[in-house]
């Protein structure tokens, strides 16, 4: 019995399912010949070689599932699947550029992409990758780019929102399966924006047309019927690529954007903390590690240096996240920093609340580190300590949790204007809560003379 992935239903030509930890795509027999041609083409092989496209092979040319001829593809498994609303500005921009590069390269080789869903891309070890093979189809003379509006909604509009107005797009994006409409971006627009030709054509104009144009008017019909030559198609893609390349993140400085320079620790204590992470990773050799509250990625870099094959970092500070993305890219390390508001994690949403699965369904690793993190949830956001511990322990069977005592300057600052109602927030209680959550304490290491300590735990699985 095949059970399709809950998010794989919009394409009537095929769907994805998992079996024995492998990823398959069951496709309609009507596109077998063109898919075979695509898979055997140098163009396709080159895309895979460049790391732009997920590795795919034809496993079975004929599969009868009782609903007509089908064939089976197998994709290389992706362990951590992130969605566009979890990406930083830098990640969405890189994904947009990859999408356009693939489009341009495809057009030059006689193919186009049927759609421009940002969900057709994800990040593997810090690099964007395209995953939807069925999006490719042969180019037909004078055809339009059918994914143009979708590209604007899912890539361009959210990027412009941040680049021109400093508005973080992630929560807007998460609020709608369509992405960010041009109508929303236009609400922020100033008169001078309209004189930017790219803004005018791709953001202002679609909004005006959607509001006021009559599809039955003679001119609308003529425009819709107007031949769209391949050169125009390519120029549109190249023009958009230049526009996306020109977009830069506004408001670079945030509370935690220079954490690696201005953290509360002294150099020595910070070094001790790095040594604890390094020793933990070297001893346990986890294949994958999740760093909740990763800031600009200092400890992810330490973990990778100690031999961890892949690190996924999470933070809710866009400045720190942006820095983490740039560092990971500069260092070419298998580190994927993602956006997460831990008090409001990505939920299961979309059609029937299953189309896009939530954080808990997608992010499980061999190890987890939560350094200088839990007090932000417990003290600043009133999440009970036992909830936080249980959540962290469910992410991975082993891990490090930093405990920051209530006397710490950071916590005292948090308590400046609110009463101290956190009587159970202490080390002893934390250790007993860990044990109650079925985690044994492997060791506790002091972080210099800061009063802070790192607790290494091991989940006791049945």
């Amino acid at each position, binding site marked *: 019995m095949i059970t399709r992935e809950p998010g794989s239903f919009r394409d009537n030509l095929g769907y994805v399912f998992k079996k024995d930890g492998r990823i398959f795509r069951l496709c309609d027999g009507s596109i077998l010949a063109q898919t075979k041609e695509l898979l055997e083409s140098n163009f396709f092989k080159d895309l895979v070689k460049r790391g732009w496209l997920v590795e795919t092979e034809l496993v079975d040319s004929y599969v009868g599932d009782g609903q007509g001829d089908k064939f089976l593809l197998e994709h290389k498994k992706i362990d951590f699947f992130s969605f566009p609303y979890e990406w930083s500005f830098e990640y969405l921009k890189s994904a947009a550029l990859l999408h356009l590069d693939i489009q341009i390269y495809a057009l030059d080789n006689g193919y186009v992409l049927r759609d421009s869903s940002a969900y057709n891309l994800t990040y593997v070890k810090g690099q964007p990758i395209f995953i939807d093979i069925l999006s490719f189809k042969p180019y037909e003379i004078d055809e*339009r780019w059918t994914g143009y*509006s979708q590209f604007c909604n899912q890539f361009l509009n959210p990027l412009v929102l941040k680049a021109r107005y400093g508005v973080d797009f992630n929560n807007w994006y998460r609020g709608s399966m369509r992405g960010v409409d041009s109508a929303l971006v236009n609400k922020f627009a100033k008169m001078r924006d309209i004189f930017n030709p790219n803004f005018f*054509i791709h953001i202002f*104009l679609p909004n005006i047309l959607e509001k006021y144009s*009559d599809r039955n*008017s003679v001119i*609308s019909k003529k*425009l819709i019927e107007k031949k769209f*030559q391949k050169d125009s198609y390519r120029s549109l893609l190249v023009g958009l690529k230049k526009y996306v390349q020109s977009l830069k993140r506004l408001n670079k400085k945030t509370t935690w954007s220079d954490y690696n320079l201005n953290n509360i620790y002294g150099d020595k204590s910070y070094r001790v903390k790095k040594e604890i992470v390094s020793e933990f990773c070297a001893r346990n050799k986890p294949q994958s590690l999740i760093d909740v509250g990763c800031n600009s990625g200092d400890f992810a870099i330490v973990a990778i240096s100690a031999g961890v094959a892949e690190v996924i970092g999470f933070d809710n500070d866009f400045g720190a996240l942006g820095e983490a993305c740039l560092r990971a890219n500069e260092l070419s390390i298998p580190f994927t920093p993602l956006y997460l508001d831990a008090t409001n994690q990505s939920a299961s949403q979309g059609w029937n609340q299953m189309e896009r699965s939530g954080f808990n369904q997608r992010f499980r690793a061999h190890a987890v580190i939560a350094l200088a993190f839990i007090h932000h949830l417990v003290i600043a956001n009133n999440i009970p300590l036992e909830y936080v511990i249980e959540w962290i322990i469910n992410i991975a069977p082993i891990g490090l949790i930093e405990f920051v005592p209530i006397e710490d300057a950071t916590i005292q600052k948090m308590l400046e204007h609110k009463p101290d109602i956190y009587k159970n927030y202490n080390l002893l209680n934390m250790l007993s809560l860990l044990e109650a959550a079925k985690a044994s304490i492997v060791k506790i290491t002091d972080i210099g003379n800061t009063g802070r300590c790192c607790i290494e735990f091991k989940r006791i699985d049945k």
Partner: protein
Amino acid sequence: MKNSMRVNIYVGVCIAMLSLNANAYIDPGITGLLVQGLIAVIGGILVFLRKPLDLIKKLFKKNDH
């Protein structure tokens, strides 16, 4: 006049030529097609005008010498 300004004015005229109807429903896919239609029209006009414009530019360049 800057090129960008010229293009904006031209596209503005094109929109004005569309019969405005605030009640009409238009799905986002059609909007995309209309924008691409306008791009094709502008592209066509620019290509059409390129030769005479180049000729005029050459004339002015000669005058400079």
